[in-house]
């Protein structure tokens, strides 16, 4: 079967605005993966370029600012589906720390970084669901959306080979991958400093009752996980 994709992306990358329209197809036959652009175009919704520019400008100066808004129509056999994405990747620095922000509320992290009093160890920290870490605990794939073959992503315990595949681009062979992953809820959540963002070197920026510190992130020590996806390390 042939996979086809029509995509439109507007991306702010460190001061340059990039608008990309592309359409292509891919096929896997006898162990050979082939991808190529196609001339056929389909009507794609507009991408909100103004949002991209305004979001990037609001973030201001940073080591890295990438803001992306995109829309894609995928087709695999008889299945056709549409995806819309908005992402922000920012690297803020204050020597010796590099703070990585992958959500839209960059300003509050930037303010917290300026208030950071130094490094401190804490017995526990709370990791909110929007901060993605590879925690060492039992995990599950939550249902929602379709995978790179247009198959539903279903609820599964993360164990063994992933049942779904991910296509980062039509030019890349689909790879098996767990998606919508969260820790399986267990244990008892306790009050603890809250992680605001990840810091290079396996650390995190945390808010401890209004005071801000950088602390080691012990991803191998998950103490509890909540239904909301929040984790207590």
């Amino acid at each position, binding site marked *: 079967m042939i996979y086809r994709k029509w995509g439109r992306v507007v991306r702010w990358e460190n001061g340059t605005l990039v608008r990309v329209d592309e359409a292509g197809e891919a096929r896997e036959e006898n162990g050979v993966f082939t991808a190529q652009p196609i*001339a056929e175009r389909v009507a794609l919704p507009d991408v909100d370029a103004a949002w991209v520019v305004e979001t990037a400008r609001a973030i201001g100066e940073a080591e890295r600012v990438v803001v992306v808004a995109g829309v894609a129509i995928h087709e695999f056999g008889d299945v056709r589906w549409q995806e819309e994405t908005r992402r922000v990747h920012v690297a803020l620095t204050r020597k010796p720390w*590099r703070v990585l922000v992958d959500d839209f509320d960059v300003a509050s992290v930037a303010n917290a970084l300026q208030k950071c009093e130094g490094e401190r160890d804490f017995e526990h920290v709370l990791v909110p669901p929007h901060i993605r870490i590879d925690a060492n605990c039992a995990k599950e794939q939550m249902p929602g959306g379709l995978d790179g073959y247009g198959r539903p992503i279903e609820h599964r315990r993360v164990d063994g080979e992933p049942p779904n595949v991910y296509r980062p681009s039509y030019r890349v062979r689909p790879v098996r991958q767990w998606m919508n992953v969260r820790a399986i809820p267990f244990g008892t959540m306790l009050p603890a400093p809250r992680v605001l963002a990840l810091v290079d070197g396996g650390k995190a920026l945390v808010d401890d009752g209004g005071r801000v510190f950088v602390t080691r992130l012990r991803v191998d020590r998950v103490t509890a996980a909540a239904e909301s996806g929040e984790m207590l390390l």
Partner: protein
Amino acid sequence: MHGIARQHGNEIVATDARDDALVAACEAAIEQMRRVVPSDARVRLVSRNGDATMTVESNGVSIVTTPEFVAADMPLLSMEDRHSCLSSGGGTGKSACPPLIWRNGSAAVLLHEAIGHPRELGIPEIEWPDWLRVDCPIELRRASFSDVPLRRMTRVVVSQVDAPFDLPNERIDVHLVRGGAYDPLTDVVTIDVAVPQLTIRATRAEISAALLGAQGEPLRYPGVVCSREGQELAVGSYAPLILTRGFA
């Protein structure tokens, strides 16, 4: 990947478009590489603009080479005794951090990180030994039509003029490097040596001070695929035999 990008000021408009001549050139390059694929290794063949790059991995280490050199480079992946490259030819004892001999052009990776990336980023130069020469042109390059062109190295050619060189009896021979990084925030270079397995972390000033000498003409290092901002580019790399102090 083929497409067209038009840049107006700080805005790029890019669309993919089929270019049959380019596809044919890339297919021909892939066919040329397939003919010399080693049978007992994991191989990735990439052709961009008709060029040919082969990444060959075996036993957890890899080289980046071309059809022309793959046969000559393969022995690097099957070196015996790769975990015990500490040579001791008469020394009275082993020091904690013996000097390093960077063989096979591998010092090009060290200086790619310590000199090349800071130049790309416009970071002020530091002093290097008088005998050291590093030809490292920087040009605007992009990995694909939809990428933002960045100041990137096109090659790193390390050479020496009248460098001192005194081969120590007790030393570690560096044969193959897995990867490296330069962090502009801390000015620290990290080199992940594959053969033998060790990791070096040092500032540029520490690396400059550690350069003890060099010998011979630049040797082609196989090779360097450099990634910045998600854009992977091959960088031709050459260096003579280089001697450095050990790094704690």
